[in-house]
C-alpha cells in the first residue's frame, strides 16, 4: 500500500496512545506561557523590602551572645518588624540545626514566634486589601509547601486567589506565597512532567516513554503533512 496510507495509520494509532497526553501537554504548556512567571511567584502579593539596620542601636555583645547560646555556627543580624534580631543557628549533637531569633537589644530568645507577631509580619508583607481569615499552626506540610520545613505558620487571606503566606516560626522568614494561579500552575505542571506524586521528577520513566511515543507521533504527523498537500492530477 501507499506510504500515505501507512503514515495515516501510524499517526492515528499512535495518536490513540498519546493523543490525550499531547492535549494535556498543550493545555498545561499554554497556561504556563500565558500567565507571567512573576505572577505565579506572587511578586505582586508580597514585598520583602527590609528596613536598613541602624548603626547606633545598642546590642548585646558577641561574647555575651556566644556565652548565652552555646554551639553557635552562624549569626545573622536583621530586622524583624521594628526590632533588630540575631538569627542564630546552633549545632547540637544528635539534633538538626536549629535556628532561633534573639532580641538584639536584650538577648532574649523570641522564637518560636507567636501568632500576633506572625499576623503583623503577614500584614506588613501583604500588598492586597483583603483581611486575614485564618492563622494556622501547621505541623504536617500540605502538598503546596511539601519541601519546606515544618512547623510553619500559615496565614490565609480573604482575597479572590485564596492567598496563603507561610512563615517560619524560627526565623520569621516568608517561606512561601501560594495563591490559586500558583496552585493551577503546579497542578498543570504535574500533568506536563507526568510525575503525579512529587510533581518534581522530570526523569521519570512514564514521561520518558510518553515523550518517545510523542516524538514518533509528531514525526508521523509531519510525514503526513507532505501527503495532505499533494496535488490531484497532472496533464
Amino acid at each position, binding site marked *: 500500500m501507499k506510504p500515505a496510507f501507512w503514515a495515516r495509520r501510524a499517526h492515528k494509532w499512535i495518536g490513540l496512545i498519546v*493523543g490525550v497526553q*499531547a492535549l494535556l501537554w498543550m493545555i498545561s*504548556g499554554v497556561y*504556563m506561557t500565558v500567565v507571567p512567571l512573576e505572577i505565579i511567584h506572587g511578586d505582586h502579593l508580597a514585598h520583602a523590602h527590609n528596613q536598613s539596620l541602624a548603626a547606633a542601636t545598642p546590642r548585646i555583645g558577641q561574647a555575651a551572645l556566644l556565652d548565652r547560646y552555646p554551639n553557635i555556627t*552562624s549569626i*545573622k543580624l536583621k530586622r524583624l518588624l521594628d526590632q533588630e534580631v540575631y538569627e542564630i543557628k546552633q*549545632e547540637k549533637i544528635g539534633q538538626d540545626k536549629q535556628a532561633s531569633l534573639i532580641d*538584639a537589644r536584650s538577648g532574649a530568645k523570641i522564637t518560636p514566634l507567636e501568632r500576633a507577631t506572625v499576623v503583623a509580619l503577614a500584614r506588613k508583607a501583604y500588598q492586597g486589601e483583603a483581611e486575614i481569615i485564618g492563622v494556622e499552626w501547621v505541623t504536617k506540610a500540605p502538598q503546596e509547601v511539601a519541601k519546606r520545613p515544618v512547623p510553619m505558620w500559615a496565614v490565609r487571606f480573604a482575597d479572590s486567589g485564596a492567598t496563603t503566606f507561610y512563615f517560619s516560626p524560627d526565623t520569621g522568614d516568608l517561606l512561601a506565597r501560594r495563591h490559586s494561579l500558583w496552585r493551577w500552575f503546579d497542578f498543570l505542571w504535574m500533568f506536563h512532567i507526568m510525575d503525579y506524586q512529587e510533581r518534581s521528577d522530570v526523569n521519570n520513566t512514564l514521561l520518558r516513554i510518553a515523550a518517545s511515543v510523542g516524538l514518533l507521533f509528531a514525526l508521523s504527523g509531519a510525514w503526513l503533512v507532505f501527503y495532505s498537500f499533494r496535488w*490531484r492530477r*497532472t496533464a
Partner: protein
Amino acid sequence: MTPWMRWLHKWVGLLIGLQFVLWMASGLMMGLLPHDKVQGHEFRAHAPAPRAWPADVLAAGEVLKQAGSAQVIVSGWLLDRPVYQALDGKRQRLFDARTGRAVVIDRELARALAVASYSGPGKPQTPILLDWTQEVRDHQARSWRVDFDDAQDTTVYLSAQTGEVLEHRNSTWRLFDVFWMLHIMDYANRSNFNNPLVIGAGIGGLWLALTGVWLLVASFHLREFVPQRWRRARELTVYAPNGSKLRTVKAAAGDSVYVALARNGLQLPSNCGGGQSCGLCEVRYRGVPPAPTAADRAHLSESKLKIGHRLACNLPLDADMEVEVAGGASLWTEHEATVERVSAVTPFLREIVLKPAQPPGPEYQPGAYLQVHVPDYELPCDRIVRPDEHHGDWAALDLPDTLSNREAVRRSYSLSLPIDATDGRLTLLARFSPGRQDRKRQPPGKGSTYLYTLQPGDRVNFSGPFGDFAIRPNAREKVFIGGGAGMAPLRAMIHSLLSQGAQERIHYWYGARVLRDAPYVDEMASLAQRNANFSWHLVLSEAAECDDALVRGLVHEAAHDRLLKDHPALLDCDFYLCGPPAMLAATRQLLHRLGVPDEQVAFDDFKI
C-alpha cells in the same frame, strides 16, 4: 464538521508541525538527561560541616561602620577565614570578620574556592573575570569563571562580590540548555517562557491537539479494535460502470471498501492514503446506499451522492456489498506500450503517441485518462529532448543539472485523440511542468520530465483508462472551453463528434498566453473550415501578436462577451470544460452566474 476539523488540523499542522516535533524532541531529551548531572551535582563537593563561630571576631553590628548601609549582615566562611556578608539592596559586600576590612575575591582566591567546591578529577584553569555570562544569566553582577579539564568540561562560577559558588556548569547542562531554548522558544535569553512567540505557537499547538482529539474520536470505529481474523468474512463484489461483474473479493467486516480493495491488490486512486481528504477514491454503491457522511458531501457533488457515489475510504463493509468502480478492471491491470512518435507541438506541450501491446477497447473513450507509471530515475538534464526551434525557450528555464525521481509514481494524462482516428494508438498531450523557477527547491514535474525524455521505441507502462469526463449522447448545442493542457480531452471529444457526423452547433473556445504556446491551431482552423457546425476561437491573454483574426483576453471572458452573453438558448447548451484551476474555477463561476444548471456542465479538473 469533521472535514472542517480535518482542514484546520492539516493547516495548523503545517504551520506548527515543526515546532511540535521540536517540543517533543526537546521534551524527550530533557526527560532523558539525568537531572543531577544537569544541575551540576556530579562533581560538586559536599558543603563543609558547620563549625563553631569564633569568639575572637568582631560583632556583626560593627561591620555596619565599614559597610555604611545594610539590611542584613550574615556570618560565613571563606575557606578558613570567618567573614561577614552585608546585603544592601541588590549589592552584596564581604568583610573580614576579624579585621572588618573589605575582602576582594582575587584570582587566586577564586581558584581556591572553586577547587574547594569541586570533587571531580579535573585540574582548574586560570580563573577569568566576567561582567555577565549566559551560563549564570540570573546573576546580574560580575562573576569568576573557573574551567576544569574533565570529560564534562565542568565550569565553576563564583560571585565576584562574595565568593559564593553560583553554579557548576557542564556539557550535560549545556546540551540541556539548548533543548530548553528550543522548548521555550526564547532564542536570545533562554529564560523567558512568557514570550509572545511561544504563546502563539502554544495556542496553535492547542488547536492542533483539540482538533486532533476530535478527529481521533471521529476516525476510529469500534470494529477497528477487533483483530481482522476475529471479524466475520464479507464479500465485496466489484462491477465496472457498464454493469459487468469484475471480481468478488473476501474482506473482514468493518474494513473500509478502500482497505478491503487495497488488501486484494486493487489500489483505488488516492493521494491521502484513505484519510477522506483528497476525494479521489470514489465508488458507486449498488443498492440503497448509506446516508452520505460529511466527508462524502465535502468531495462529491449532490447529483453524484444521489446516485450512490461514496468515498471508498469512508464506506465500511458491514454486510456483503456491491460497488461499481470507475475504470473497473483496468485498476488491476498494467498495460505495456511502445512509444511510436513524439512531437513538440509547442515549446512546452508535447504529443506522445503510444502503441499499446493489446489493442484498446471501447472504454478508451474521449475524455478518459491514463495513469502513466513513472519509474524511479536519475537523469542528467540534457536527456530532455529539445528540438532546435525551441532552444531559446528551454534556455530560459533554470533547470537543475540532475533530474531525479526516487520512488515510482503514477501520473495521469488524458487521451488527446479518439482511438478510432489513430488506428488504436493512444495519443497524449503532456505539458512540461518546470517547477518553481524562483526557488530551486521545487524541481520540475516528475511525470513530465520522464515523458520529455522518451524517444520512439521506448517502453511505457500504464493503467487505465479512467475518468467520467465523457460526451453525453445527445444532440444539444455544445460549448467547449479550455486552456493549456486542457486541449487534450476537448480535442479528442471534438474529433470524435465531428467524425461521427454530429450536426449540432459546436463551439470551441481555447485560451493560451501567446500564439507560440497554442497547440493544434492549424488543425482546429481546418476542422472549422470543413465543418460548418464547428467554430474555433483562439483567445490570447498577452497582447503583442493579436491581429484581427485573434481575440485578446481571458478565455472565459471572451466566450462570455462574444457568445454566451447574447445567446438566445443558453440553457439548452451543454458545456465541457478543461484547463488550469484558475481558468476552470472562473468559468464555472461564470456559468453558475448565467444560470446554467450544474448537470449541463461537465469538467475535468487537472488541479495543476
